[in-house]
């Protein structure tokens, strides 16, 4: 039994040893299968997390293995991922592996299985895969809870530009889910009857509260998810560190954009890590951090600045020597000492950066906003610098900054302070010039001076002192104090020579004197005026150097020569200068400027050397001369414009253009055709001499119409186009006519005057008065001598040779004394004409009559060939109406009535002068009917009319030459 027992023990030991050997020798493949596979889900990261172990491993055994993992979606046959995972496996080790799904894991059932293979060099080949583990199903849909619609992933955080897949799960019967991204419908992919996927590529950052995705089936339900899109984390820029005092390192950087999302991700954090010391600090600020320098005198630093957020981590690195990164602190305690009118000492202090360190400081002096001086100085702790060449009474600002002199890295901040220099007396004599006007017995000296510049005045100028010294009588001094800001004064001096001293004074003192001498005899000779050249810089002028001793030259001009005062300007030049360029902002185009160049003698007397004139820019003439035309003949006329001033023109007048227009259109010799600005054609004659101000236009045609126009021209152009003056040449013989007509007229007038003077004589000779028988001297003689009853022969006393008396018919009688109505009635049918002599009724032809003709009384009547009475046939009443209207006749009758009845016995025949009727006739009255020619006897009867009818009505439009009213009751004798 004991032997059996020993054998049995030995066998078992041998077996164990073999087994052990076999295991150690790994002489054959082992069935190492993954076991205890567990799959879990991390929804936030959309990860499948696997864990398993390999139980078959021996104690403390380590074996390199490969695990093949297969992932299927929806069903096991739909394999979507296969990955080999190599690792070294230890005894009892739990292995982990994760897989991030693009599709949210809640939206699909996933299946996972795994197998393994030994991949260790110690194991001889061939190697083979183990058998697959069983499929592990991962289904989150069961844990979704109630609800009909779900959208995943929830609150996912991605970086801008990422690709994201959204999925929706619908538990309704009809899966027609539509999803909106920020209100815009997305196109989906149907993964399963209940699952849709929406792929978003390159998602943008829209807002910090996330991008909204809302899904609905359109039946009142709806849900969504928020996609948080973070900006991409940037690498910090401009990372640098420096120390002001070897105690702390101040590190700064540009953080770039903030990636924080209020509800999902805080802003990125910054961490500073120093590799030599191994220290690490979390920075509280996003763009700077302070690092405490230890006392171990570490020189080299290797910093890594790391920034990170939930999605990304980035870092930058710098390596430096601490002594090369020293930026001193801002200097302090800046003080100005020993300030004078031109100097000041600036002192300051700096914070120490080490026992033996030297600082390099920069000083800047600012005046009126500009840097005037810049100085560098090396210091240890206390700095000072003497600022010199300063202007008195001026405010300055001086600032200082410092850097490490040994290893310059950066300047400190500036520190500055203002200071003002002290006041001083004016440092320069005022620039003085004069204008002298000599009058008989005295001279008027006007002094001008320019205000001192601020740098020379040194303070506000209070007054100017003018001391006048009579050189002929040196004891005589006059002092004039002129308060500022006057820039001149006027002095009236006698003809002596005077030396004038002008000084400017401020509260501190007096400036050097400016001295000029005026002499009673100016000695200014007449110099010819020259034209001055004009350049872009101004008036360029030069003059001949003076042979004698000249202490300098002065160029004088007026800025506003047309004004009074003309704003006198001057420029003083040295004795060796014989040319200058005068420029002024006041120079205006078209204004003539006169320049006078004076030489200053050693006795400080100014004498005129040259005169120059010119324009800064010439312009065309602004006006045309007033042209006077004279000597007009049939072939020529003369134009003159002598009053035209060439001096006041906006340019040098170079001549004149005479334009002439004629109907012929032909230009006379010397003229040329020219087109005027108004496009009309004219003939132009050019006068090249500006002083020629007359022009004779010749070769004209008599009795022709011409137009002329004269305009001056400068180098720029001619004057404005004005209206042409019109002229017509006279007739060639008109002067002859004048020579004849005038004397003739004169002669006629002379004769007429003579005739008038001798009219009485002429009258007596040519047409003497008809003698009045009543006034005849013969009558008085007869009366006195013979019969006192004897009188002038009357008609009734005459015994005519033959008188034919025709009785007027009864029907034609007019009842003078009857009623007016009856008279009017009869007038209508029977004109109220009374005939001197009764004519035969209805007799239209001329009948025999007797006329007492008196040619003296009625010329017109006599000219008509009749005695004035017109025998009108009764058959022509209309003609009668024209001759005299019934109304006129009625008036006549009324006049008669007013006189009362004329006794028949007394008025058998009345003699009426013919003169009264024609003279009172209205000029505008219609002409009387032509008198019917009547065969009258040689002696025409004068008309007889009652006295009351001597004057016919003034408005009588037509009248007969004479009317004789006869009493019908009386016999016609």
């Amino acid at each position: 039994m004991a032997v059996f027992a020993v054998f049995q023990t030995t066998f078992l030991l041998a077996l164990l040893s073999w087994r052990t050997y076999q295991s150690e020798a790994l002489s054959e493949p082992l069935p190492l299968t993954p076991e205890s596979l567990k799959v879990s889900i991390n929804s936030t990261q959309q990860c499948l997390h696997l864990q398993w172990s390999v139980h078959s491993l021996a104690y403390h055994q380590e074996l390199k293995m490969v695990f093949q993992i297969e992932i299927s979606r929806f069903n096991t046959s739909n394999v979507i991922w296969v990955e080999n995972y190599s690792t070294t496996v230890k005894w009892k080790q739990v292995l982990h592996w994760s897989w991030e799904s693009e599709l949210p894991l809640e939206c699909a059932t996933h299946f996972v299985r795994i197998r393994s293979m030994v991949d260790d060099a110690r194991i001889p080949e061939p190697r083979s895969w183990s058998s697959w583990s069983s499929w592990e199903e991962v289904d989150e849909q069961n844990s979704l809870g109630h609800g009909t619609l779900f959208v995943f992933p929830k609150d996912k955080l991605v970086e801008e530009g990422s690709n994201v897949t959204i999925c929706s799960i619908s538990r309704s019967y009809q899966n027609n889910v539509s999803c909106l991204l920020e209100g815009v419908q997305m196109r989906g992919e149907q993964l399963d009857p209940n699952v849709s996927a929406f792929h978003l590529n390159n998602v943008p950052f829209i807002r910090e509260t996330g991008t909204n995705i809302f899904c609905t089936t359109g039946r009142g339900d709806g849900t969504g998810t928020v996609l948080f899109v973070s900006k991409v984390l940037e690498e910090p820029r401009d990372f640098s560190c420096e120390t002001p005092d070897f105690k702390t390192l101040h590190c700064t950087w540009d953080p770039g954009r903030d990636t924080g999302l209020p509800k999902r991700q805080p802003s990125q954090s910054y961490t500073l890590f120093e590799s030599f010391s191994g220290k690490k600090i979390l920075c509280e600020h996003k763009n700077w951090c302070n690092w405490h320098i230890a006392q171990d005198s570490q020189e080299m630093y290797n910093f890594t600045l790391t920034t990170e957020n939930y999605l990304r981590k980035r870092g930058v690195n710098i390596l430096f020597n601490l002594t090369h990164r020293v930026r001193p602190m801002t200097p302090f305690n800046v003080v100005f000492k020993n300030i004078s009118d031109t100097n000041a000492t600036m002192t300051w202090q700096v914070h120490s950066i080490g026992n033996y360190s030297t600082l390099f400081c920069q000083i800047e002096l600012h005046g009126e906003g500009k840097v005037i001086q810049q100085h560098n100085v090396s210091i240890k702790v206390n700095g000072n610098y003497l600022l010199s060449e300063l202007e008195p009474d001026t405010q300055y600002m001086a600032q200082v900054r410092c850097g490490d002199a040994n290893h310059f890295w950066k300047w400190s901040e500036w520190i500055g302070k203002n200071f003002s220099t002290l006041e001083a007396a004016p440092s320069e004599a005022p620039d003085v010039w004069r204008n002298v006007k000599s009058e008989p017995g005295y001279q008027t000296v006007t002094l001008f001076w320019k205000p001192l510049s601020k740098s020379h005045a040194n303070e506000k100028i209070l007054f100017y002192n003018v001391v006048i010294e009579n050189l002929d009588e040196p004891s005589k001094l006059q002092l004039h104090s002129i308060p500022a800001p006057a820039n001149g004064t006027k002095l009236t001096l006698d003809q002596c020579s005077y030396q004038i001293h002008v000084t400017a004074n401020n509260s501190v003192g007096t400036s050097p004197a400016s001295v000029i001498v005026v002499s009673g005899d100016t000695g200014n000779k007449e110099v010819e005026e020259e034209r001055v050249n004009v350049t872009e810089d101004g008036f360029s002028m030069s003059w001949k150097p003076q042979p004698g001793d000249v202490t300098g030259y002065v160029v004088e001009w007026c800025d506003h020569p047309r004004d009074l005062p003309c704003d006198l300007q001057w420029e003083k030049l040295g004795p060796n200068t014989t040319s200058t360029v005068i420029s002024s902002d006041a120079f205006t185009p078209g204004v003539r400027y006169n320049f006078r160049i004076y030489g200053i003698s050693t006795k400080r007397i100014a004498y005129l050397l040259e005169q120059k004139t010119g324009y800064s820019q010439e312009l065309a003439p602004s006006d045309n001369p007033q042209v006077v035309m004279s000597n007009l003949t049939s072939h020529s006329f003369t134009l003159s414009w002598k009053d035209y001033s060439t001096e006041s023109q906006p340019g040098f007048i170079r001549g004149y253009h005479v334009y002439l227009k004629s109907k012929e259109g032909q230009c006379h010799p010397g003229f040329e055709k020219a087109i005027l600005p108004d496009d009309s054609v004219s003939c132009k004659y050019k006068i090249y001499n500006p002083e020629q101000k007359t022009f004779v236009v010749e070769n004209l045609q008599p009795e022709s119409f011409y137009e002329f126009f004269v305009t001056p021209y400068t180098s720029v152009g001619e004057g404005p186009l004005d209206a042409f003056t019109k002229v017509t040449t006279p007739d060639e013989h008109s002067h002859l006519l004048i020579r004849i007509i005038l004397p003739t007229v004169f002669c006629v007038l002379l004769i007429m005057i003579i005739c008038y003077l001798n009219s009485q004589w002429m009258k007596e000779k040519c047409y003497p008065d008809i003698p009045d028988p009543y006034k005849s001297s013969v009558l008085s003689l007869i009366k006195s001598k013979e019969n006192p009853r004897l009188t002038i022969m009357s008609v009734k006393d005459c015994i005519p040779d033959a008188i034919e008396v025709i009785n007027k018919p009864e029907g034609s009688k007019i009842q003078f004394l009857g009623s007016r109505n009856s008279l009017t009635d009869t007038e209508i049918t029977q004109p109220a004409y009374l005939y001197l002599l009764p004519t035969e009724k209805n007799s239209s032809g001329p009948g025999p009559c007797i006329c007492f003709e008196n040619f003296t009384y009625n010329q017109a009547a006599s000219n008509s060939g009749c005695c004035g009475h017109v025998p009108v046939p009764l058959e022509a009443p209309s003609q009668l109406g024209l001759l005299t209207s019934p109304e006129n006749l009625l008036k006549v009758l009324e006049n008669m009535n007013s006189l009362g009845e004329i006794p028949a016995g007394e008025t058998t025949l009345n003699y009426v002068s013919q003169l009264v009727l024609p003279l009172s006739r209205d000029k505008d009255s219609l002409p009387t009917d032509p008198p019917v020619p009547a065969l009258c006897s040689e002696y025409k009867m004068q008309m007889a009319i009652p006295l009351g009818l001597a004057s016919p009505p003034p408005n009588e439009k037509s009248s007969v030459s004479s009317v004789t009213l006869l009493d019908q009751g009386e016999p016609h004798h």
Partner: protein
Amino acid sequence: MLACLCTVLWHLPAVPALNRTGDPGPGPSIQKTYDLTRYLEHQLRSLAGTYLNYLGPPFNEPDFNPPRLGAETLPRATVNLEVWRSLNDKLRLTQNYEAYSHLLCYLRGLNRQAATAELRRSLAHFCTSLQGLLGSIAGVMAALGYPLPQPLPGTEPTWSPDPAHSDFLQKMDDFWLLKELQTWLWRSAKDFNRLKKKMQPPAAAVTLHLEAHGF
């Protein structure tokens, strides 16, 4: 904001419970409560526009009408018309008071979550105004002799985000809170208008009242 505070402070003394100087009855305080309601309506219109733009589309779209998933705890303003008409004064005022008490708590929670300072200022301003309205309603109830509803201890409503809530559901809750608040203000205007008419004294009394003022 200053103007709003002044309005609220101006209204507060008008509450009859606080104003012991006279006894004009509940009419003026109801009128002032009505005015305050209309003012808050106007103020909320501006605030809601800003807040919904802050949430982004589709919440700021005019026809957006999501389901009330997480907003079931909000007091509903919508009620059957017949039921509303049949409400007595006490119940009407109590419902208003309770609703605004809850809504004010929710609104303060909303303010705490707002990301921008400007939005927080606007929300705080509105909360102050709403607190004024609540005081005004309490004044009316006191004037009418109705007791204020006492909240049960430990049932203070809160509007803190549920950890299980997705951010989208939280936005939907915010949307519904503003919408419900708008509806409540609209309903309160109707309620107080109805109360105002009901409490209006007869014409003779008005005349006497005016005469008394004349002296």
